[in-house]
């Protein structure tokens, strides 16, 4: 535990939220370059949201996924307590 505490809290938050933010940004760009949300929704039906809205929702969904990933990575980085 004492080892852990050496890492400043900001750095811990940053280590989870920031890389996932960057990756999610890249994923959003790639995804929406390949697919036009309005066309996809045209095929499956959806709510009445603008393209900006779909981009934004897409971005936050990606961010949620990527930050979940970061959280898990951080979690597994902790050494196991072997007794």
């Amino acid at each position, binding site marked *: 535990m004492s080892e852990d505490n050496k890492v400043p809290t900001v750095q811990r938050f940053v280590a989870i939220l920031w890389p996932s933010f960057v990756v999610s940004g890249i994923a959003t760009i790639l995804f929406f370059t390949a697919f036009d949300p309005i066309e996809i929704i045209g095929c499956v039906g959806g709510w009445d949201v603008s393209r900006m*809205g779909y981009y934004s929702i897409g971005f936050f969904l990606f961010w949620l996924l990527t930050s979940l990933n970061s959280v898990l990575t951080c979690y597994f980085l902790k050494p196991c307590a072997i007794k």
Partner: protein
Amino acid sequence: MTEKNTQNVEITAVEEVYAKRKKIYPRQVTGLFASLRFSGVLSLLGLYYLGPLMQWNGRQAILFDLPARKFYIFEWIFWPQDFIYLAALLIIAAIALFLVTALAGRVWCGYACPQTVWTEAFLWIERKVEGSRAKQIKLDKKGWSWGKFRIKFTKHFIWITFSLLTGFVFVGWFTPITELTARTLSFELGPWEAFWIFFYGFATYGNAGWMREQVCMYMCPYARFQSAMFDKNTLVISYDEERGEPRGPRKKGSDYQTDGKGACVDCSLCVQVCPTGIDIRDGLQYQCIGCAACVDVCNEVMDKMGYQRNLVSYTTENALHGKKESFFRPRVLIYIILLSVISVALFTSIAQRVPLGLDVIRDRSSLYRETDDGMIENVYTLKIMNMDLKPHRYSLAVGGIDGLILKKQNKGIHVDSGAVLNYPVRIQAEADKLNAASTELMFYLNAIDDDALSVAKEGRFLGPVYK
């Protein structure tokens, strides 16, 4: 720039209060590099805030129109299909950054990084409201009072207003800014526009007002791998230890060399001006953003003492150790070659780009149809994209199979500039001309008014198999 020695005492005191993260109060500097940075910051901020207002042929000159999925850059319109150009541009930017870093260290960080640029702007506002470094430190140590509240409130109010303006302009790069302004003034902003204005504004306020050097230290990947890009010939900010040590105060007018002292008077000004709060005399550290504030201030001290300048300076490791310096070293050459090859490839391919796109989509509801007179008919939808700046009329032709008949022949298909037209076509072939269940056919689209505009696209023609 007087009364500095008394301030040393004050920083130590404040450092204790902020045991976890010491708040850094960068002292204002003047000098060559400070003016360079000032002009860099001013021109970049000008570019950012005024850029979206630039007009070109009656529209916003640079507009990354995300809602319409089109990028306008002066003469050109880019579509999602042109993504490869964006990718190439990013690669060029990355290599250019490597090249600059190998040659001159972190000049990007010190002069051009948005984090530096906005932090400088915020520091400027802070200084205008709270006064000099010494006044800021004193104010922060004081207990809360009406006067302190008023000063802090003013500062944050200006910061937040400035941040919101920044957020607004940010969205203005992605959606036409004149309409955005009109919608803002009449309180009719779309929910997502409003959201991104606040989100970006908040990020600006947080990063430039509060996080500052922590962004460079904890968030920036570039700072972490700087050592991989540096070599012994890279320009870095460093302190000439041989000349400076042993440091220490001295009497005015005494000859320090006979007193056995070095040139550093240990005034700690280089530490006070440092935006990341490090002491350059400890050697190259990854926190150093290469802003050269310490160079400017130390030169001032050296001038005042009548010593030679550049005790802290832009120099290379080789120069510092009296070794030979080389400019064109392998890594620099490789970067330059890569950079030229990719740039030339990018610009020739943009120049040769045909601003016309064609997609062929087969009708999904039926494979083929046999007409009353025994012909086989296939139905397609053509997606015609006019990526040019003018409207055009196109003629369509088909080929690849003998005796193909294009039903609905016409005087030309009109498509507006920047528009996508879905154009249904019916094509008939004689059954005995088809050798397989699926045969390739070609669609040729040519602009009637411009011979250079032509594209071909293949499709599949389906039919029955008799043989």
